[in-house]
């Protein structure tokens, strides 16, 4: 008998040791946001995941900020001007404090750039600012940034380039900086991070913009969508993102929540393999474009939250040419083109997608292709090892894949054209697929000058070329849809950011 008692006592003690701590009551001054996961680190330079970026922007500032109209606004830099094609001057804001009390200066700016450009640190963001050759501190309030070639995307890239405190990071080390003591200049400061559960932040009283409306910010990691939706309905969470279009009608009229949706850069496309049949023939690629009834899909499957796209260059990006028109829905023409290309009885293809949230869309467009004679076998892959194999065999297992591209919130045509179509190594997948004569040269031309009107003309040329050659089935740009508790006032942004400084308790 005694043995059982002992066992029971031991087990109870073990259980108590692992007991979860009771949560603080859901106070009125706490804003709770749900993401599907946390980034592996809070160090803003050492990851490149959207969920990480969303947390970082609330803890760290960059040199430039975007307002709700998506225009550039001074942030840690109060003004900037180009001194030459390859040199920019930034004047820094005075009296900005880090969360630990230290004052921000040019040294911190230089340090931040250096640590990403330092290849031994292996920052995943290196590729984005590779063009920056050097950062020089002219005086504590002025820095000069040198690029090796004219870099038209410089300002864009500086919108998400958080500035970190040099002394603090050097003292605690990179590891601790990313896990237990991240310090920035942003509206909220770090309190605690329980892995896979939540990140707790507290308002920073000395933030240079003033205090945010909510005293506490909790960012929870909830991987399951159904659970997130249940949480927003019961008030357990105040904001969830990536709400499926099908849930919009219900949440729009829900007593506890409302929907906020806005167009974003993210563009959808089906990249076609031009190296092999049947998509080596332009006529077939164009036929595929004519076969899709984009409007119906947008209305029926996306609750109208999408805009047809003529090419992969988004309307919100610099360089977009509205004169280039999207392919119309014309199944008859599609069949004609198919027959012209030598497939009067149709052809069989396989398409690939890892885009789980848009699976119904993928299946619908596969059906539309089948109806004009391009008999499609749609395959859904779980992102992960199988997808990885696909990458390694250079996508030869399939005729095309359904992808999306968000430009990493850079509102410039180069940010989608270069990664998707330029044939130099590095960049995103699908690079193997596209072979358009002369496209590389044009892309290089457009990115090696800062003369914006000239760039615009080149981008018009590129868009016409791409539309004609149809290396992809061009689809649409999507919206970012948030579900927000009625107790909170906030609006979705066109750059997919959760800039929670703007969130306020709703007026009673």
């Amino acid at each position, binding site marked *: 008998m005694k043995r059982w008692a002992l066992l029971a006592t031991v*087990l109870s003690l*073990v*259980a108590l*040791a*692992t*007991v*979860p*701590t*009771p*949560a603080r009551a859901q106070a009125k001054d706490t804003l709770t946001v749900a993401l599907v*996961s946390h980034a*592996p*680190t809070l160090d803003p330079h*050492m990851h490149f995941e959207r969920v990480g970026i969303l947390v970082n922007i609330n803890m760290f500032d960059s040199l430039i900020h975007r307002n709700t109209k998506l225009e550039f606004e001074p942030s840690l830099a109060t003004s900037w001007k180009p001194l030459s094609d390859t040199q920019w001057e930034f004047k820094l804001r005075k009296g900005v404090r880090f969360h630990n009390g230290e004052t921000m200066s040019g040294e911190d700016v230089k340090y931040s750039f250096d640590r990403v450009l330092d290849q031994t640190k292996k920052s*995943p963001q290196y*590729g984005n600012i590779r063009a920056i050759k050097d950062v020089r501190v002219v005086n504590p309030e002025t820095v000069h940034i040198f690029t090796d070639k004219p870099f038209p995307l410089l300002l864009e890239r500086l919108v998400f380039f958080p500035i970190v405190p040099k002394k603090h990071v050097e003292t605690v080390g990179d*590891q601790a900086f*990313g*896990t237990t003591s991240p310090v920035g200049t942003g509206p909220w400061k770090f309190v605690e991070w*329980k*892995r*896979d*559960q939540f990140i707790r932040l507290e308002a920073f009283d000395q933030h240079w913009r003033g205090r945010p409306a909510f005293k506490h910010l909790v960012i*929870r*990691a*909830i*991987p*399951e969508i*159904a*659970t997130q939706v*249940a*949480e927003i*309905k*019961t008030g*357990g969470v105040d904001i969830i993102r990536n709400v499926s279009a099908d849930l919009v009608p219900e949440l729009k009229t829900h007593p506890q929540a409302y929907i906020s949706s806005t167009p974003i850069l993210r563009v959808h496309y089906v990249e076609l393999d031009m190296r092999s049949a049947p998509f080596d023939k332009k006529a077939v690629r164009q036929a595929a474009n004519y076969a899709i009834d984009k409007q119906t899909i947008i209305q029926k499957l996306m609750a109208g939250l999408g805009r047809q796209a003529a090419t992969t260059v988004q309307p919100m990006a610099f360089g977009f040419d509205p004169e280039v028109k999207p392919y119309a829905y014309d199944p008859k023409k599609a069949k004609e083109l198919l027959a012209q290309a030598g497939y009067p009885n149709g052809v069989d293809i396989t398409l690939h997608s890892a885009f789980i949230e848009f699976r119904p869309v993928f299946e619908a467009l596969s059906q539309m292709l089948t109806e004009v004679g391009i008999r499609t076998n749609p395959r859904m892959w*779980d*992102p*992960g*090892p*199988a997808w*990885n*194999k696909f*990458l*390694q065999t250079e996508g030869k297992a399939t005729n095309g894949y359904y992808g999306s591209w968000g430009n990493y919130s850079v509102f410039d045509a180069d940010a989608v054209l270069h*990664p998707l179509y330029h044939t130099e*190594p*590095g*960049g*995103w*997948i699908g690079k193997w697929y596209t072979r358009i004569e002369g496209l590389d040269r044009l892309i290089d031309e457009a990115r090696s000058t800062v003369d914006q009107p000239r760039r615009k003309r080149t981008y018009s040329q590129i868009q016409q070329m791409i539309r004609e050659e149809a290396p992809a089935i061009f689809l649409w740009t999507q919206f970012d849809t948030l579900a927000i508790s009625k107790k909170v006032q906030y609006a979705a942004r066109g750059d997919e950011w959760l800039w929670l400084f703007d969130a306020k308790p709703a007026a009673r």
Partner: protein
Amino acid sequence: MLTLLARRVVRLVVVLAGVSLVTFAILHVSGDPVSLMMPEAPEADRAALRQAMGFNDPLALQFGRFVRNIARGDFGQSFFHREPALPLVLHRMPTTLLLAVLAMGLSLGVAVPVGILSAVRRNSLFDHGATFAVFLGTSMPVFWTGIMLILLLAVQLRVLPVSGWESWAALVLPTLTLATFSTPLLLRIVRSSMLDVINLDYVRTARAKGVSEWFVICRHALINAALPLVTVAGLQFGLLLGGAVITETVFAVPGVGRLIVGAIRQLDFPIVQAGVFLLALIVVLVNFAVDMLYIYLNPQIRVR
């Protein structure tokens, strides 16, 4: 007795070695983690990283390295978290164990009384009803049970929180979900063990002597049921750990299962290896404990 112990320990080590080998094999066959770590980097950079991480060495060499490291407690650095893998896994292990233990506890807490009653009132409405109700739980996919419970108890009736692991109340739904999984089998065992003893002579004699019927029944039944119950509960524990993977995802519980599932998707070798190794270790230890308990409870084996 000591040789028995020694033999079991040897078996433990061998099984763990086998487990590591299988994990190692699966992961290395499945793809190139470097491409997932640096999808946008030029191939030259990736090839360099592969070389640096030793992926180009022959597999036997890599495995040997792996075994030597775990003997030192070093499972390597997680590719994505950039921290040692073992502490990351250990940090979450108590959560998963707590969930599994609570679920097992709930299962036993339901299975024993209901099983006894079912046997005593054999073929009655209660018996059939209990069998049916309990089998219901085991006939639905675990994630579906979880989602249904969320919808019913959290969203509709608002009596419990939807997800998380931050309060005692939040423990209820995940435990309940997982327990529906293991209760049926345990109930059957209690019931059939009861049926075995209920008509035995010594039970009848005791009844004739006027000893309280319940006392007799429970005591003898439990003793008889203890052996198979303990064995099966041990086996079930392994299944529960597997079911915890699903439950943790549905209820956003910060446990090992969720971590490993994410790591499998990202081909984060060190975490998968550390996690699976530790889970297997626990299962083996639990079975070991069960074996020892079995021997203790069953005098016949001890004598042999």
